[in-house]
């Protein structure tokens, strides 16, 4: 491959917009002084990062779905709920392995639980795209109405299959509880959430930046028409993005269910508020923005929840307002044409 020549002076460098990252760091530092206790601050920071990464897993697919085809899918929470309920059933089926004191046996319960959530949510995503989304391409009002209706119908179907009651989703035995580092208590499951969240982010960035499919997705988010004019079928690409986005929402749903240790039918709808906030402040269609936005939301929710519980509920709405006043297109706006 031809390399750029260096005989024309130094190459200009692409500037990475570090301001959102500095703000993220600033939030963490300011929280340290406001909280006053180092151990509490570490605990809250890890909790915030874990929560943020779980939200990122659930939100990343939706931001690409919107960016690529302008599809407003208000039923994205359905895939979160499906993932959580499939997680409940699978974990129950593997309850003896989950209850074992052996970490390897616990993995034998955790892996099929997460895999089942991914596969079932992905399959339902494929069905949903074909039956619900495809007939309303390009029609935003109809998309909002039909996906909201689809979400209501799906919640009722979950009632029929799993019942209306709150169901427990226990964590595998060795992932319960905390361990102490000095006087800092770190919940084991939060570390699992961090590891899975960072792995998903790394994999997404790898695919988006190092593969032709990823290039096509990024190009399609910017200018779908031009990608089609180059001979690529964006709709076919979109179907796969939709399926992967649904599968990731399912993965996030199962992990979030374990994070809370119980599941209700409203788990998806409840998360949708945070997910919409994250993809709006991140910049619609931007995976990097979604990542930074999710971390901001997770950290602010935990810090404010500790410092001023009464304000906690509205803290993320306030965060969104501040970001949008500053950057109306989000932290990392995509140059969409």
């Amino acid at each position: 491959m031809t390399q750029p020549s260096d005989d024309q002076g130094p190459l200009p460098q692409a500037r990475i917009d570090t301001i959102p990252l500095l703000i993220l760091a600033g939030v963490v530092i300011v929280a340290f002084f406001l909280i006053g206790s180092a151990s509490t601050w570490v605990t809250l920071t890890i909790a915030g990062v874990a929560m943020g990464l779980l939200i990122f897993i659930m939100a990343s697919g939706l931001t690409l779905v919107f960016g690529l085809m302008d599809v407003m899918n208000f039923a994205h929470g359905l895939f979160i709920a499906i993932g959580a309920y499939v997680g409940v059933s699978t974990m129950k089926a593997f309850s003896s392995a989950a209850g074992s004191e052996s970490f390897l046996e616990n993995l034998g319960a955790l892996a099929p639980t997460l895999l089942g959530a991914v596969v079932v949510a992905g399959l339902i995503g494929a069905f949903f795209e074909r039956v619900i989304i495809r007939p309303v391409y390009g029609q935003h009002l109809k998309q909002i109405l039909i996906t909201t209706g689809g979400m209501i119908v799906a919640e009722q179907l979950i009632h029929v299959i799993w019942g209306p009651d709150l169901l427990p989703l226990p964590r595998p035995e060795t992932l319960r509880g905390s361990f102490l580092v000095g006087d800092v208590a770190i919940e084991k499951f939060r570390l699992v959430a961090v590891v899975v969240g960072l792995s998903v982010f790394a994999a997404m960035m790898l695919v988006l930046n190092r593969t032709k499919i990823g290039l096509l997705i990024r190009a399609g988010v910017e200018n779908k028409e031009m990608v089609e004019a180059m001979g690529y079928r964006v709709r076919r690409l979109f179907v796969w993005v939709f399926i992967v986005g649904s599968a990731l929402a399912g993965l996030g749903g199962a992990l979030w269910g374990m994070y809370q240790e119980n599941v209700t039918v409203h788990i998806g709808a409840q998360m949708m508020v945070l997910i919409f906030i994250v993809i709006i402040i991140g910049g619609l269609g931007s995976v990097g923005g979604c990542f930074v936005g999710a971390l901001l939301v997770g950290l602010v929710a935990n810090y404010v929840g500790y410092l001023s519980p009464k304000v906690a509920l509205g803290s993320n709405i306030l965060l969104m307002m501040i970001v949008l006043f500053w950057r109306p297109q989000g932290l990392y706006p995509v140059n969409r044409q």
Partner: protein
Amino acid sequence: MPEPLLTLAGVHTHIGQYHILQGVDLAVPRGELTMLLGRNGAGKTTALRTILGLWKASSGSIRFDQAEIAARETPDIASMGIAYVPETMGIFAGLSVKDNLVLAARESALDEARLENVFRFFPALRKFWFLPAGLLSGGQKQMLSISRAMIEPRKLVLIDEPTKGLAPAIINNLIEALKELKQTDTTILMVEQNFHAARSLGDGVAVMDSGRIVHTGRMADLAADEALQTRLLGLSLDVHQ
């Protein structure tokens, strides 16, 4: 006159309530560069977009390489060997110069010889190879946009006002690159307002007015006939350079 590679017959295009193309008849000879001229709003850009299926013809026939394409989807039409350089340039601002060209190469890897050819005309692209295309200047973006059409062999290239808003030195570069493209037997249909570019490059010419083709002929004949220019385009093109 070579046989036509592209033929439009009685093509009508509606955009919403507007009837833009009102029965376009046009033959683009194989291996030639045909200039599509006309006043603003005559329907030139709509004609290019309709050929590529970005706007659907409401009636009429569009034949490319002996196949009817009016009802086909844009990716299918493009895959038959048509490249498009839109007026807006259509570059992917967040992708590097390299990645823009990698996507344009479609099925295969970048051809080293063709890439060197692109760099010969547009050395700035070599310099900014790994830089996001959004950081390029307007002229460099246009170079990239045209390079995407040159990076793979194409049967037909549709180019919409490539010199718009560019400095004269860059326009001369583009003209040289397009002359080189012509030498490769690529058929080109180009909308252009810059008469210097149109006269330098055009073999044939078609003039549009109010959604119809009102004149076809040789570019050299139109360039030599000031009265015809004034009648068809409203002014002498030499004034317009």
